[in-house]
Every structure is written in C-alpha cells, then in structure tokens.
C-alpha cells in the first residue's frame, strides 16, 4: 500500500471539509481526500440561504438567531454551541462575501436576506429576514466559492479517493485508508490530525433529497472504530420534497411567500402554527403534512399536497397580511427561485410560475452524528473526553447545535462556522503534536473486507438489500414512529446486515473504477447507521423535534432532556449512554409557533 504523510487530512470536500482545508492549510500541510470531485459534493444542493443576523433588511440580533436555533431544536440543542453558531455566522457570511460569493443584493448593495422557517423577531414572534442568499442556489455558490479559494491557496486534493477506514494505533488515531477509484489501489494517509467532513446518510430512506453518495461513510467508520454516535434518532424530514422523486424544493419558496395547500384548497398551516403558518420549523410542518395525508386531505386523494408560489396566490395572502406584494411578479420568481422553476419544469412537468407544485416530506438531514465539542474535537464518551487529533464538522458531526430539529439555513451556517473551527483547531494541534506511529497491519482489515465484497458469490444483489432497508426506514422510522413498528424495523435491519455479511453477489471483480464493490461497501455503512438510528429511536420514549412517537406523544424533559450516545458492543450488540444538554440562558418551555 502506498503511504502518504500530511499534518492534517480532511475526509470529504463539501462545505465543511473545504472550509477546514482553507483554514488548516494556512499553517500546516493539508490533504483533502474525497470520493467525489469536490464540486460534486452535496453542499451544492443546498438552496435557499445561510442564516446570519446581519440586519440588512430589518432589525435582527444574533441572540435572536441563537434562541430560534435552541427553540427549533426543541431544547435538545447545546446552547453554548447555538450561541457560537449565531454569533460567528455573521463574520462567516461576511468572509464568504469577501471570498467572492455572489450574494443577491439589496438596493443599497448589501447582502440580501429573506425569511425562512423558524427564524423570528423575538419580540413580535413574526418571521424575520435572516437568510442570506444567492438566488436559490446558495449551497452551490458556497461550494464553488470555497473550492475556488482552495485552488487559489494551492490546497492538495486527492479527488476520487474513497476513504474506507481510520487507522488506529490502540486508541490513538494515526490516519486513514482510502481506495483510489481509478486503479483500485489502497492508500494509507498518515496524519497527526484527521477531520471528518463526510456528510449525512439520507440514503437510509426511500424518499430523500439526498445524493446517492450520502451514505454516511465517515459516521460509520468512526462508529466501527469505537467512537459513539450521538442523537441518531433525530433525522429531519423536509416538508417540501418534490413528488414523487423527493428532490428538495427550497424553504425559500415559503420565505418568499409561497403557501402549502391541501386537497380541500385550505392553507392548512394556519391551523397548526397560527403565528408563523408556513414558516414554522420543519418538523412541525412535516408532521402537519403527514396528518393531512393520513386524514385523507391529499390532493385528489393522493399522497401529496401543493406548494403554491404563483403570483395570484402569493399576492392574495400577502394582501391579507397587509403586505405590499407588487414586486412579486413572474420575473421576480424566475430570478429569486430560478432553480425551483427549473426543477418543477424538468422533473414534474409543471411550471411553478403558473401552477402549484406537488410535494411530500422527504428525508433530508441528520441532526445526530459523530459527537464533538464546540471546537469540533471528537469526544469519546459522556464525560466529554476528547480524542486527541480527531475532528468532525458539518452534517456528519453532532456538536449539538441542531438538537432535535435543525432550522433551515443552519446547515450551511454549521459547516462554515464549525468547519472553520475544525480547520483551525486541527492545524493548531498538528503544529505541536507528533505523528502516532502506524501499526504494522495498517489497512489490512479493510483490505480483506473489500476483498470479501469483491469476491462474494452469494445470491442477493446489494440493491435488493438497499431497497428493503429504505422501504423499512420509510415506513417504520419516518415522520411518525411507534415502538412496535420500530422493533420490527430493527429486526429487519439486523437480518439485512447478516445477509450483507454472508450472501451478497458482486459482478465486478476488477480494479479499475470498481463502483460495484464500493457501492456495496457504502450499503454496509447505511445498514449500520440505519440500525443505530432505529435503536436510538426505539430507546427514546418521548416525542421531541423530529422524533415523533405515536406511543409517547409528549416531550418529557424530566427523563429525556439529554443526548443519546450509542456504542458498538461486540459484533451484534449496541450499548446506550447519555450526556447532559448544555443550557446557558434559555430554560426549556413549551414550543409554539
């Protein structure tokens, strides 16, 4: 195996990884290792905006952003982390602008901001314009801008190198193992500090906004190496996935005035969130949609509702609210929601300027993940013991800044703020630390696992297992859950894991660009995370944020105001532990929108 040596290696090249790379590479030797070309990363699919209390359009304060984040997270958010997120968001957005990010502009030439779900004026309770945006392709522009800056700063990239394991020497991280897609060779990356920035695992579900590559590799790798996973029961379903594909339709549509309509033509969110209506937080709206569908109020009796952004409808509701809406013209929609228009026309055959879009909730974002402190350092247990040299940021990490439910725009804030912290802290650590020596058998375990997959000659094609996992998670670990179904789901997933380990069939035995083998390996990651998710969800006997149990309908602060940590316990077993929520100034109270 070829060995490379760098002070810091960054696993993944989405927003968090690139931000970490930019900062770490200022002082130490850095390599970014990514299974995709960096600009293919899923940060590029983020649409509507990045939240920061710039106050460019109206009064706003970072303290309001922090509170909204805590409330949005249903009080499971660590409040020190939310304060950092909201405060540093302002500098981070300004810095992105300096890097060249083409934000939309106000008349005065400042960064333009729009409304988004759960972001409010804390005095009036009304939605506030906080989401800084570049049309409705903000994530694309962030990804492009960060990659551009990495090129400017000569950051070293290993593109299309698929990271498949950590290298541990005892309990000390020494590096990572990656497969070079082009020729199938295994490479050892020896490093003082390792940053996980590998993204989420929406592909556990059938209907998802996530890319095919969102298979949770980093979280699964960490977990297999003894690191716990935090709050895995909290997975966000975005209310407006396009029907039937599940592709994301941005919340920015509702921020601009779009409304949700049921089969009776009602703006039903008025019943569920009287104050902010269609701009309630995502868990609240996804549940409302699920209830509308369950009670037979889908469009024409189908499994979808409408998201209406036509000028006629939006102007009518804005007039009702006493707002001027003269600016809301077809041209305005084409400019501000260009991607949405393209998506509707391409994938639904519907022009959103003239007709409402069919939507359904779609699996979107992992609130849980690799536990870290506010410096992006990975922690090993409930005492917050730091694992020296190991960092995580972005969706794969759980700081926990999103608690039980993430607010829209906060994923982009998270990866900029905590990606930067990860890069800075990793570099600082690497400057003083020495390399942990490589064990003589480094990479051998994963090499034999990949060989097992490559030569497997069973009877089940991996996609069969993947489909079964996805439909199981969709039906039994979705917007609403209950103990009975989740136990069934857990049994099914464990059976699928056994099948995966013993009876899969692979066609491609070659070494060049063998995605047959790597897709199967990714399935192993998904199965592992699906198991932990279901186990965690079954364990938490309350409803909070995105975790809504039909058999435990209330939030239970007495027993459950705490984070879940799950560890692998032997091959088959899982072990659960807990960690207190950090509360600074916002005492938990009932959550009403």
């Amino acid at each position, binding site marked *: 195996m070829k060995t490379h040596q760098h002070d810091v290696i960054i696993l993944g090249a989405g927003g968090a990884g690139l931000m970490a790379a930019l900062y770490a590479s200022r002082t130490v030797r850095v390599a970014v290792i990514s299974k995709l070309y960096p600009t293919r990363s899923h940060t590029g699919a983020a649409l509507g905006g990045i939240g920061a209390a710039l106050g460019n359009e109206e009064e706003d304060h970072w303290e309001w952003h922090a509170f909204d984040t805590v409330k949005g997270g249903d009080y499971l958010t660590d409040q020190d982390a939310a304060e950092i997120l909201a405060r540093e968001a302002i*500098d981070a957005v300004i810095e992105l602008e300096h890097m060249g990010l083409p934000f939309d502009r106000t008349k005065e030439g400042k960064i333009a901001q729009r409304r988004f779900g759960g972001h409010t004026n804390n005095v009036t309770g009304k939605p506030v314009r906080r989401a800084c945006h570049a049309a409705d392709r903000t994530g694309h522009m962030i990804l492009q801008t960060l990659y551009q800056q990495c*090129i400017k700063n000569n950051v070293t990239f290993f593109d299309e190198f698929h990271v498949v394991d950590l290298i541990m020497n005892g309990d000390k991280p020494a590096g990572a193992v990656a497969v070079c897609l082009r020729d199938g060779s295994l490479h050892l990356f020896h490093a003082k500090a390792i940053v996980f920035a590998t993204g989420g695992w929406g592909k556990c579900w059938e209907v998802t906004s996530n890319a095919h590559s969102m298979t949770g590799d980093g979280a699964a790798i960490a977990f297999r190496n003894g690191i716990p996973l935090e709050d895995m029961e909290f997975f966000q379903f975005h209310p407006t996935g396009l029907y039937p594909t599940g592709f994301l339709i941005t919340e920015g549509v509702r921020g601009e005035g779009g409304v949700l309509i049921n089969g009776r033509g009602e703006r039903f969110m008025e019943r569920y969130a009287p104050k902010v209506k269609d701009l309630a937080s995502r868990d609240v709206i996804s549940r409302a949609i699920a209830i509308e569908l369950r009670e037979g109020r889908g469009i024409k009796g189908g499994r979808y509702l409408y998201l209406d952004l036509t000028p006629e409808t939006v102007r009518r509701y804005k007039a009702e609210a006493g707002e001027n809406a003269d600016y809301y013209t077809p041209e305005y929609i084409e400019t501000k929601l260009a991607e949405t228009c393209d*998506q509707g026309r391409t994938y639904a055959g519907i022009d959103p300027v003239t007709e409402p879009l069919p939507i359904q909730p779609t699996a979107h974002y992992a609130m849980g993940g690799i536990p870290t402190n506010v410096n992006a350092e990975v922690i090993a247990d409930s005492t917050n013991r730091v694992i020296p040299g190991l960092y995580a940021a972005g969706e794969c990490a759980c700081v926990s800044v999103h608690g039980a439910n993430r607010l829209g725009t906060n994923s982009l804030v998270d990866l900029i703020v905590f990606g930067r912290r990860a890069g800075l802290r990793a570099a600082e650590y690497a400057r003083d630390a020495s390399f942990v020596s490589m064990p003589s058998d480094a990479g051998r375990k994963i090499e034999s696992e990949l060989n097992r997959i490559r030569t497997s000659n069973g009877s089940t094609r991996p996609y069969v297992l993947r489909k079964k996992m996805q439909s199981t998670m969709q039906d039994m670990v979705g917007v609403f859950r209950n103990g009975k179904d989740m136990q069934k789901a857990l049994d099914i997933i464990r059976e699928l894991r056994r099948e995966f380990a013993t009876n899969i069939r692979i066609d491609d035995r070659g070494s060049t660009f063998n995605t047959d083998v790597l897709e199967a390996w990714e399935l192993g990651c998904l199965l592992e995370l699906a198991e932990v998710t279901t186990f965690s969800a079954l364990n938490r006997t309350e409803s909070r944020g995105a975790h809504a149990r039909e058999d435990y309908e209330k939030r239970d602060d007495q027993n459950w105001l705490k984070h879940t940590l799950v560890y692998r316990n032997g091959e088959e077993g899982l072990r659960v532990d807990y960690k207190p929520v950090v509360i600074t100034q916002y005492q938990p109270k009932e959550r009403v929108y």
Partner: protein
Amino acid sequence: MQATIRIRRFNPEKDKKPYWATYTLQDCEPTNRVLELLHRIKWEIDGTLTLRRSCAQGICGSDAMRINGRNRLACKVLLQEFGENPKIQVEPILGLPVIKDLVVDMEPFFAHYRAVMPYLVNDSPPPIGPDGKPRERLQSPEARARYDDTTKCILCAACTTSCPSFWANGAYVGPAAIVQAHRFIFDDRDQLLQERLDVLADPDGVWRCRTVYNCTPACPRGIQVTQAIGEVKRAIRAGKRDY
C-alpha cells in the same frame, strides 16, 4: 413500457476496444430519468456497468454523457421525450480519455479550469461597520446581475466536450473554463482583470472558439455559453470590463 438502451462500453482490463451493448428494460415509466435506467442495468443486470453520478437532480454535474448524440446530464433527461418505445443510445462525453464505460478522465478538463484563475482576487481592505468589524463589499443589484448567468456553471463538462475546437485541440481551454473566467471578469469586485484577459488572449484561449454554438444547447444549466465567450472576446479587444 419497454425501453431499449444501447451503451458504449469499455473495460480496460478486458477489452481491446470499446463496443456497444444493448439492454432491454420492462416496466419503465415516462417520468424515469436515463440515470434511473442506467442504475437498473447496473443494479439488476450487470454490476460492472460503470458511471459517475451523485445528486441525481442536476446540480452536482457528475453524470454528463452523450445521450442520442447530445451532451446531457443523465439525471435530467426523462424517458418521455423519446416517445412510446424509447430507444436510447448512451456513450461517454467526447474529447477526454475513457477510463471505463461512461467514466472519462476529467483531469485535463480541471487543468483548464484551474488555468483561468477561477477565484476572486481583491486585496483592498474591506469596509468596516459601525461596530468596528469588517462588512461586505457593496455591489449594486445591476453589477451583480452582470455575471449572474455564468455563476450557474456546475463544471459538468457538457459544453467543453461538445465543442469541435476542443475535440480538434485538447490544449484549447474550452467553453467551461471561459464561462468560469467570465464569472470573474464581469464581477466588479475583482481586481485581476488584466491578468485574466491576458490568459484568455493566449493562442489556446478564447480565440480558438469558432462560434459553432454547440456549447449553448449542451449546457444543462441553460447558460448562454456562446454569448459569454463573445463577451470575453469583446472585453479582450477593449482591454476593459465595460467595453
């Protein structure tokens, strides 16, 4: 309905040269995307079929390929456009070396991209707000609109690999790199204008464009590529941004 797909295949470990393989799929829907059909072949019939893909919704730029003779993103082409019994031909984009099946070597493409210095340069100190902290550089909505179209580029290479000038001479930077340069040339916050124009005035720069117009219809993002190239040419002639 039934769909027939003919795929240009090549495995360097087995094949001396590329060949066509034909697959027939039942139970296809008019709303299926070509990418879904390729996945069905890979997952259900032959796991050795190799392609790049990620987002499957037209934003990551991984799955540009030549579909019925035109460069498209496989995730953005729906079966319905091919009629009742669709017959589809899929091959790798042209002008870049094939690694395996539909996967080509993207390195030459990204080398051209890097050559145009695709990053904003502005070394003057940023404005300071009332709280003493840096603020954004102001830019009017009109100035922002000037380069809006070219910010949409996802580096899928559909334009560059549809260009006969690029096929003829791989040293030509190609439409995508010029689109990327355009995005900075017409951004009034950027301070590297002259250097950018110099790079593109190189013999392998913008003048290799013969305005064949293949690139514009090839762009899955609807960017007016040929127009952007024309604007860069005019800026080079004038030696300034607002020619």
